[in-house]
């Protein structure tokens, strides 16, 4: 067995301080980080997938009551949030591009914009949750959801089924919001590093990988929004 000489850890450190000791080349490190994030996102799909599955089952069974619950959510606020998130995905993509081109100031601006948009989303979410609390739509002893099934003025809303709608609503959007908070925190850390000029055409992996994560959180919302907010809106 013959070996090809590979640079020792010391020599590598001189070449690029970002290269970690166990990787042979920077390209290998970047590929590994990228693949790692894609694989992680696959697990997140399965994580949210379990909830989507529960939601789909109950929506099929309790369509009318779920329609009523859906109509009590604000399409204006939800729609605004959707637009906000899509814009934040744009700013993230621009940040990655800026890093690839070495435009240090642009990186920082775009990352800050992304975080701001994320915070706007969370703020609007907070308003929505507050509305739900005030209207007694939070599952629990104080739950009260009067009214009738959309399109059927004679059929009253089944309170237990409506509670299941709102339980799933809070858990699904709550978990999504948690992922967004983590994302904003990640970007804060990355912005700090960007201010220290850590990223450039040679090394922008963290920006790209965090961007991937953010896009994923956006895509989850793009499924959540119509599923939760837009049932049976024609009635």
């Amino acid at each position, binding site marked *: 067995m013959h070996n090809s000489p590979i640079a020792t850890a010391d020599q590598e450190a001189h070449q690029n301080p970002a290269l970690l000791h166990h990787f042979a080349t920077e390209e290998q490190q970047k590929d590994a980080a990228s693949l790692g994030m894609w694989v992680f996102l696959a697990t997140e799909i399965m994580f949210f997938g379990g909830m989507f599955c529960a939601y789909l089952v109950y929506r099929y069974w309790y369509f*009318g009551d779920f329609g009523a619950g859906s109509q009590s959510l604000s399409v204006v606020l939800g729609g605004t949030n959707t637009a906000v998130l899509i814009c934040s995905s744009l700013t993230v993509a621009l940040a990655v591009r800026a890093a690839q081109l070495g435009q240090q100031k642009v990186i920082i601006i775009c990352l800050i914009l992304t975080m701001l948009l994320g915070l706007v989303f969370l703020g609007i979410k907070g308003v929505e949750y507050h509305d739900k609390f005030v209207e007694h739509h939070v599952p629990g002893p104080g739950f009260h959801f009067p009214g009738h*099934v959309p399109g*059927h003025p*004679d*059929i*009253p809303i*089944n309170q237990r089924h409506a509670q299941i709608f709102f339980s799933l609503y809070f858990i699904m959007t709550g978990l999504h919001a948690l992922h967004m908070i983590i994302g904003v925190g990640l970007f804060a850390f990355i912005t700090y590093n960007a201010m220290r000029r850590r990223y450039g055409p040679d090394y922008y992996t963290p920006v790209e990988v965090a961007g991937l994560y953010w896009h994923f959180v956006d895509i989850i919302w793009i499924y959540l929004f119509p599923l939760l907010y837009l049932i049976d809106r024609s009635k």
Partner: protein
Amino acid sequence: MANNVDALYIFLLVVSGMMTVAIFTMVLVFAVRYRKRPGQRAEQIDGSHALEITWSLIPFCIFMVFFAWGAIIFFQERKPPQDSAEVYTVAKQWMWKFEHMEGQREINELHVPIGRDVKMIMTSQDVIHSFFIPAFRIKQDVLPGRYTVAWFHATKAGTYHLFCAEYCGTMHSGMVGSVVVMEPKDYEAWMGGGGNQPLAVTGEKLFTELGCVTCHRSDTQGRGPNLVSIFGKLVLLEDGRTVVADENYIRESILQPGAKIVNGFKPIMPTFQGQISDEQLNALVAYVKSLSQAPSGQTGGRKMATATP
């Protein structure tokens, strides 16, 4: 039925036994025959497509026999005969409550005659239990909120264990009982002593007391569908679906009337959720079923039930 299960079991035992002996023998024989010997080297064999295919296909074919035989038995177990004697069962932590159609109530003991198909219509008051009679080789989970069904046909007199087979809390292992299989005349004697009210009659009384009869009249003038001869038939719902009017449908209609509205009727039936016990529910279901009994005791064939307002 139990004999069929045992026959399949023995078949599986024989095949598995043969396979186990074969593998054990080969491993032992190879371990000894091909042990390290001075001057002899192992012979490298990469593999053999022919062998791989053979020992994939042959087991697969045998597995398909296991599957098919087991599926046939299962199919029979899941289709209770039409004119089975019915026993309503309510399971709760930690006892079994039985009610025969003739009105006898039993706790933890179930008396049945030899030679009769017996169908258990079961629900739970609290958590999931499981109705298990080892001697009859049957088992069925009993769920809260819906009915599940098991049936058997006892052929030998005696007393057999009844176990709860789904962990249900502290006294899960105490939720045991017995199935007492009696000669037909002994069973008649046991049934006769008690003067119980048949379950369907209890149901009929409830039907009146609770006001069901006001809307569910036996003519076409009621605000609710006519329930005579409805059981076991297909029902057209107002959203276009058709469902079979079985025990679960009747139960759901009483507890959640808005879930399935019959075509041509308005959703005005109030819910009885929380107002009646499982036993009362069973009685009402039994009564509605009795409205579909032809005089000879057979329920009618399946036809579209058309409801006119």
